[in-house]
Structure formats: structure tokens, C-alpha cells
């Protein structure tokens, strides 16, 4: 597969907390148009890996390249996160006192002036939250919140969408809606999902199974 289709390349990722090795040389490539599920038991290193892939943690061994650009471990990488990475969390992490529109627009506040952006109204309509744009985030249901979080993560057209148990707090119907949206979103980006759900994993193109800090399947 052409290197230009690689959204994110991780090579030899290691991470320790004290004497405990959490990641032991994890290498993986995440391609555009592919949805990858990372599975593993508690303590296997999933969240640690996700933090490193999402550029939330700079203290690790190995290297990460996004869209062919080597990510520096010495910098804060706030701009790289803003340009390349979108996050969807199990607990949504919306800013409750802001409106839905402001929540979706929040990444733009920190974006470069000429950053490519999606049309917020169209994006909201496509996720079924077009009528909620002026409501405060605190008033939404769980399913609506997750769709707002998804809209926020997509608003700057990121290369990589990182989802940490995106359906963990949703009922089955809402989970299916979110999964459907993720399937649609993966067209032009790499989607990485950490999940315990077999349903979610079944809908992914690829599975990476972590065990004791190593990829044992994928």
C-alpha cells in the first residue's frame, strides 16, 4: 500500500510507569479509509497507546509520524493535535455551559486562520443535531452529546479520529447511530477505536489486540 495512504505510523512505541513496562515496542500503521479497533483486557496498554497516538503524551520511546510528518516529542504538539487529530471520548467531555454550536466550533478557536473547516450546519444536520445547535450542551441526552462530540471532532477535518469507547455510555440504538457515523467519517481519515464492545469491533476493518503491552493480533 502506498505510503501516502498512511495516516499514522507508530514504530517501536514503548512506555513505562516506574518499573512497569506498559507498552513494549508497539508498531502499527493506520491508513486513511480504515477503521481499526484496539482490543485488550484492562491493563493491556490500550489507553496508554491511545494517548500516545493522539499526541496527548510526549513521554514515550519510539516514534510517530502523521501524514508523513515525524512528530516531535519535545514540543507540546497542540497545533498538531488541532490539525491532525479528532477525539471522541466515552464521557463526551463537552463544555456544558457552551451551546452545541460553540462546542462544535471550539477546535476552530485554536486553529490556524486558514485551516480547512467543515460547514457546521451541514455537519450538524448530517448527525441529526441540526435543531440543537443553540441549546446548551448540558441539556442534551447521552446520544445527542456523543453526536455533538463527534461533530466537534470532525469539524476541522482531521486525518485521524481517535475514539475511546465511543459507545460505552450509549444505549444500543444510539450506539448504532454513532457507529454508522464513524463508518461514514472514515472515508478520508483513519479511525482508531478503543473498545470492549464486540459489536463495535465487528464493524471495524481491522483489529489490533493488545496483551501485556504488545500487539498479539493485527
Amino acid at each position, binding site marked *: 500500500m502506498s505510503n501516502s495512504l498512511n495516516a499514522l505510523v507508530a514504530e517501536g512505541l514503548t512506555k513505562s510507569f516506574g518499573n512497569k513496562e506498559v507498552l513494549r515496542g508497539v508498531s502499527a500503521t493506520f491508513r486513511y479509509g480504515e477503521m481499526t479497533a484496539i482490543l485488550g483486557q*484492562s491493563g493491556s496498554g490500550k*489507553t496508554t497507546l491511545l*494517548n500516545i497516538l*493522539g499526541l*496527548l*503524551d510526549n513521554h514515550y520511546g519510539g516514534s510517530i509520524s502523521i501524514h508523513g510528518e515525524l512528530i516531535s516529542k519535545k514540543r*507540546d504538539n*497542540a*497545533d498538531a*493535535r*488541532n*490539525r491532525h487529530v*479528532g*477525539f471522541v*471520548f*466515552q*464521557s463526551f*467531555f463537552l*463544555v456544558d455551559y*457552551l451551546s452545541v454550536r*460553540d462546542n462544535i*466550533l*471550539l*477546535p*476552530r*478557536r*485554536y*486553529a490556524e*486562520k486558514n485551516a480547512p473547516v467543515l460547514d*457546521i450546519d451541514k455537519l450538524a444536520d448530517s448527525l441529526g443535531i441540526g435543531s440543537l445547535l443553540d441549546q446548551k450542551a448540558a441539556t442534551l441526552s447521552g446520544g445527542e452529546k456523543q453526536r455533538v462530540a463527534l461533530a*466537534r*471532532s470532525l469539524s*476541522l477535518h482531521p486525518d485521524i479520529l481517535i475514539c*475511546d*469507547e465511543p459507545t*460505552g455510555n450509549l444505549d444500543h440504538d444510539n450506539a448504532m447511530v454513532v457507529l454508522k457515523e464513524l463508518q461514514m467519517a472514515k472515508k478520508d481519515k483513519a479511525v482508531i477505536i478503543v473498545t*470492549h464492545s464486540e459489536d463495535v469491533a465487528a464493524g471495524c476493518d481491522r483489529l489490533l489486540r493488545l496483551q501485556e503491552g504488545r500487539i498479539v493480533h493485527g
Partner: protein
Amino acid sequence: MDKRKKVASASDPKAIIFLYFTVFLVSFFSLLSANMTNIDVRREFLDYDEFPEGYSLFSSGNEKTYETFVDTNFAPFPHYEIEYGTLSSEETSVESPECLVKVYGLKESEIPPYVPSPYRDDSLIPFTLKAGNLLSHGDFVLGLGDFLTMDSSFAVSLAETGGSLKIKGSTFALKGVMDQCHAAKRSQKPIVPIWVSKATFETFFPPSLSSSDLSYSLECVAKTDSYDFESQSAAPLQSYRLIKREEEQKLKTSADERFSLTIGLMAISSIAIVIIQTLYVKGRDEEIGIRRAIGASRFDIVADFGGKSLAYGLFGLSSAIFLSALGSLLYGVYCSVECYAPLLFFDWSASLTIIGLYGLVFVMASLIPLILAAHINISEVLVEER
């Protein structure tokens, strides 16, 4: 269209209101205190200034004739001569709040020492010509009484020593104020300075003018005949110095107390601001985490969470500067100090020091919690229970 500016920044109205009032109250009381001290210092040292021997305190900048004053109904000055510490004029003609005194033949050793202001006890007492050690041989003393200071022709700034003053259109260099000599409570408004003059004084008040030529209908509020040079001269110069030192020490203590109060207020305020800001960001670590995760730099976090706080704090400081200046002015007027020169009430150096110091304290106290909050470990605050 760039919509970034439309996204609301983080803010907490309660925290901002707390910050505003904290900054306002501390800076207001600090500035007011500093300027009140300034006024007190000025007031005290107007009384205690010593003038060099033969120093001319009042001189004319141009030639004006006595007739000018007559034409404008200026109350003429009775003329007295004091020789060897004794008033030579009749007692009846002495009873004037405006008096021109020429001191003849006072030898240095006979110059009465400083006389402690007897009106400090705020009781009504007779006017005492406290020539003290302020007069030198041949000096003229012009005492401006209540009537003159309230006359519209004196509706000009009673400038500081060294400044200038216009009387009936004539400019006078004001070299100093001998003392207050008003038979009134010290805290009352009228300032009754006595100007000591030389030079062209006689142009205005010809010596040929005798008291019998004068006609005026001023109420007698002062009595120069109560002045007892004999007893005054008996007071040792050392006493004067002691009294002066005590007064200065008292003033210094007062200034020190106010300064301590200011520093204390600043310290308490900085702690309060740190607490307010810490409470403000505490519990918002998830919000800060998500903002950082989606691309906010640490600077962005400080700006988002601290921008309004800083703006309102600076607004509080600005309003405190304005209101404390106004308060100082009122205090100065109340204390009857240079009531025609409002800017003199403002101690610029002390005020700028306080503004600078407190501005720094405020910025540091409000930003440090935010800077610490901006350095959170994103992956830790966004970790979820599984």
C-alpha cells in the same frame, strides 16, 4: 468567514465579580491611604518648615500700586511695627486678621523659638503671632486672614511654597508660609497663611500709611496682643527641635502604619485572588483537558480562563485610581490644604508605585493558578473509568 471569535471563552461571572471588587477595594484603600498620608505630610510641614534667615517669602513679580487695591476695594492692611519683640502700635489697631508686621532689630539670639501650635487641640483660641524663628530682622510679615482668603480675588490656587500666586492680577512668587494663624479649629477650612516678605513690599503698603488712615470693617477674629515675646523667647530652641522631631516621628509612624496596612491588604488580596482563581479552575480540569486535547496551547488556556479576569481586574484598578483621587481631593479640602490645587492631593510617586506593585501582584496572583492549570497532564485528566 472566520468564526473563531464567536466561540465563547471560559468565564465565571461570580469569580470575575469577586476579582473586580477585590482589586478595586485594595487599590482604592491603598491609593487613598497613600494620598491621605501625602496630604498629612504637606499639612504638617507647612507648619513646621523653617526658613533660612532673611528668606523672602513673598515678593512681587511686577509693579502694582496701592491704589490698585483701593480701587478694587481691597481691604487695606494695618501696619504694625514690632521692635525688640514688642508691638508698638495701639492695641485697638492690632485687632485685625490681616496684619502687616515689620520686625525691627531682632537679634538672632532674641528670635523666639518655634511655638507649638496651640490650636492643635481644636479649641478656639486667640490669634497668636507666632513669629517664632521664622522671622528675621527687617522682614515683613503679611498675614492673610479669613476675609482675604475667602475674597474672590484670592480664588486662585494658593500654590505650594516655591510656586506663584496671583493677587489682583499681580504675580507673586510664594517663598513660603510662616504659619497658620487663624483663631479657629485646625480642621476648619480657612487657611490663614502669613507671608513673609521683603523687597518691593512698600510699593504696595507705604509705610506712611498709618493705622488711623485705614478704614475697614473686618470682624476681629485675631488678637496679636496675646503674643508674649518674653515667654516665647524663654522657650529653648532645643524644645522646638524636640517637638518638631516628635511631630515628624508621629507623622512617620502614621505613614508607616498606612504603608503596613497597604502591604497587608495587598498580601491578603493576593491570597484571595489566588484562592478565587484556583477555585475557578478547580473542577474544570476536564474542560481544560479537552481544550488542550483539541488543540489549545497552554497560552490559549491562560488567555481563555484569565482574559476576562485580567480585564475586570484592570477595570477595578482604574476605577480605584479615579475614586481614590476624588477621595483624596475631598480629604484635602476637608483638611484645608491647598484646596485650589487638586492635583497636589495626588501623590504621584506613591500612587504609581502602588499601582505598579499591586498591578504586578494582581497579575501574578491571578495568572499563577491558571498557568499551573494549563500544565495539567491531559492524558491523566481525560482518563476514564473502565
